[in-house]
């Protein structure tokens, strides 16, 4: 029986499209196209180009361009878009979709991400892949919609209940919003683990040139765990409840080993002029942009300053930072909060290195000149 859905897409077409991406059909885009887009749109395009045809989310500023773009494009591609009743529903819709082996994503902003934490913990416990975009806003509470990096702890420390970690990617350009979205899908499939993309309003709302396409997909293991109906095989179960003696201990050790593997295989960072630096600024996301300009200004004045930018906030590039601290003895962490990542910098560097902090609570962005003033304090 050929039925049509409310949008008039015949069911057979939908099934064919669904099967295509469930079975890992090649949806990945190889041709490239140059365009001028917002950061949020770049993420939506990255999702589509990664073969993600399922998006479930709830409106919240400043990330609405992502669901708006996908609600327009996914149905025509045979995908599914649901504006759920809450972020709690969104993350659980994703749990079901992900369990079938399909690529699925949601995006939200800080308070919405808080509501998803229970579900994210279940993803980690059930070892299911998912991509969660947090175009974060400022808090605590309702806070505001201005850029903030106040969700660093929540993102990198797991966020929900239990002993788990999620991979956290921190883009700093529109191009990276796209590229890291593609990478996020691969990493989440590789590890069967949630991946969070942590941006803010500055990155989500600004427009920059984007070279769309050209991402090279990783070699990924087959999804031999996916729930597709027990046709000609033993039934599978995906769960996070382990009540038998010793089961949960074993499960937690297994997860731990996975997180250790992430630290070995998938640490990403960028170093800028650190070779001869006497002071290295450590900053991620939007603050790395401000810091980059500050480094240029400092160099013009003859100060040997570099920039170290973690791209994966978990796994944190702790070993690289430690090696760097064997040469450079002064680090200045610049954040758009009152001090969160600085703790990871302190944990990473050698004991004889000094770690300074310059941060601002949400409300206004520090200018490169302000950061330069801070640099001067420690270069004197």
């Amino acid at each position, binding site marked *: 029986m050929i039925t049509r859905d409310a949008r008039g897409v015949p069911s057979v077409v939908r099934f064919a499209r669904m099967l295509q991406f469930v079975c890992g059909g090649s949806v990945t885009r190889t041709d490239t196209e140059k365009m001028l887009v917002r950061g949020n749109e770049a993420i939506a395009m990255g999702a589509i180009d990664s073969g993600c045809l399922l998006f479930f989310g709830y409106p919240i500023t400043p990330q609405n361009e992502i669901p708006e773009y996908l609600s327009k494009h996914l149905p025509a591609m045979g995908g599914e878009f649901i504006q759920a*009743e809450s972020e709690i529903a969104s993350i659980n819709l994703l749990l079901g979709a992900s369990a079938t082996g399909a690529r699925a994503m949601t995006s939200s902003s800080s308070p919405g991400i808080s509501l998803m934490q229970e579900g994210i913990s*279940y993803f980690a416990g059930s070892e299911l892949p998912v991509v969660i975009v947090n175009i974060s806003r400022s808090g605590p509470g309702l806070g505001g919609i201005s850029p903030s990096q106040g969700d660093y702890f929540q993102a990198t420390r797991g966020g929900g209940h239990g002993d788990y970690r999620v991979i956290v990617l921190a883009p700093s350009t529109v191009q990276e919003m796209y590229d890291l979205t593609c990478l996020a899908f691969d990493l989440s499939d590789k590890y069967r683990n949630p991946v969070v993309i942590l941006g803010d309003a500055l990155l989500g709302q600004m427009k920059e040139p984007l070279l769309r396409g050209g991402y090279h997909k990783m070699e990924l293991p087959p999804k031999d765990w996916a729930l*597709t109906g*027990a*046709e*000609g095989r033993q039934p599978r179960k*995906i769960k996070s409840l382990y009540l038998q003696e010793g089961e949960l201990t074993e499960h937690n050790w297994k997860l731990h080993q996975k997180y250790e593997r992430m630290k070995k295989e998938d640490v990403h960072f960028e170093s800028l002029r650190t070779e001869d630096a006497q002071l290295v600024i450590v900053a991620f996301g939007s603050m790395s942009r401000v810091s980059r300009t500050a480094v240029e200004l400092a160099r013009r004045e003859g100060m040997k300053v570099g920039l170290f930018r973690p791209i994966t906030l978990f796994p944190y590039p702790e070993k690289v930072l430690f090696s760097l601290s064997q040469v450079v003895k002064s680090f200045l962490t610049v954040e758009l909060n009152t001090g969160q990542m600085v703790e990871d910098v302190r944990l990473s560097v050698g004991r004889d290195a000094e770690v300074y902090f310059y941060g601002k609570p949400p409300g206004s962005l520090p200018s490169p000149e302000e950061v330069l003033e801070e640099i001067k304090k420690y270069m004197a």
Partner: protein
Amino acid sequence: MLCALCPLRVLEVSMELVFKRPECLIDVPFHFCPGCHHGIGHRLVAEAIDYFKIREKTIGVASVGCSVFMYDYFNIDVLEAPHGRASAVASGVKRARKDRIVFTIQGDGDLGAIGIAEGIHTANRGENITLIFANNGIYGMTGGQMAPTTLLGQKTTTSPYGRDFTYDGYPIRMAEMLATLEGSAFVARVAVNNPANLMKAKKAVRKAFQMQIEEMGFAFVEILMACPTNWKMTALEANRRVGEEMIPYFPLGILKERKMADYL
């Protein structure tokens, strides 16, 4: 069959098996307490799946509560949902694989309290899934606390003086509530406390799967169940209470049945 020695035709006495375990259920004992109706609910679902021969294309979603161990009993793929979120999780499975049959069994705490938003919106979106609502008016797994469907005056561990509407509100009639939504295609309330009701329950559960197969939309069957352990009754007393106290407040019957999918 012919006897080799005599020319007479010997009739073979054939023994037909008239009652057996559904293919869909694994041959292990249920953990449910003696007199609990959950096992019957599981069996009704299993029989419906067997009837439509959809075992190999069905995916179940286990909710949190006494129904969480569904994956130990059903011979099908099963995913475990967080507490209250089973209908959202089941919708996610279905949206990703519309060619599969998806069902969940949710308890009264799961659907009527913590997951009521997900339940209502799943119905309202007309998600093409089957939701079996196990209503025993109490939190079974956590040890007998008050549920949203606990009857007025009923004593539980958290309503030790009996449920009082001035403090605790009224028992929620989920079937009636969901039947008001345009998105729901089939809504029924059944009981399994006697053979007549059991046969109606069997038909309703089967219908709820048929609706999904025919892509009619959201199908919901509320099954009134006994919980002797937490009601602090014998199995017989608990079974009797379903008829005497629950059914008068939660009337049985088919509340809604869509005959044709809206978009056809």
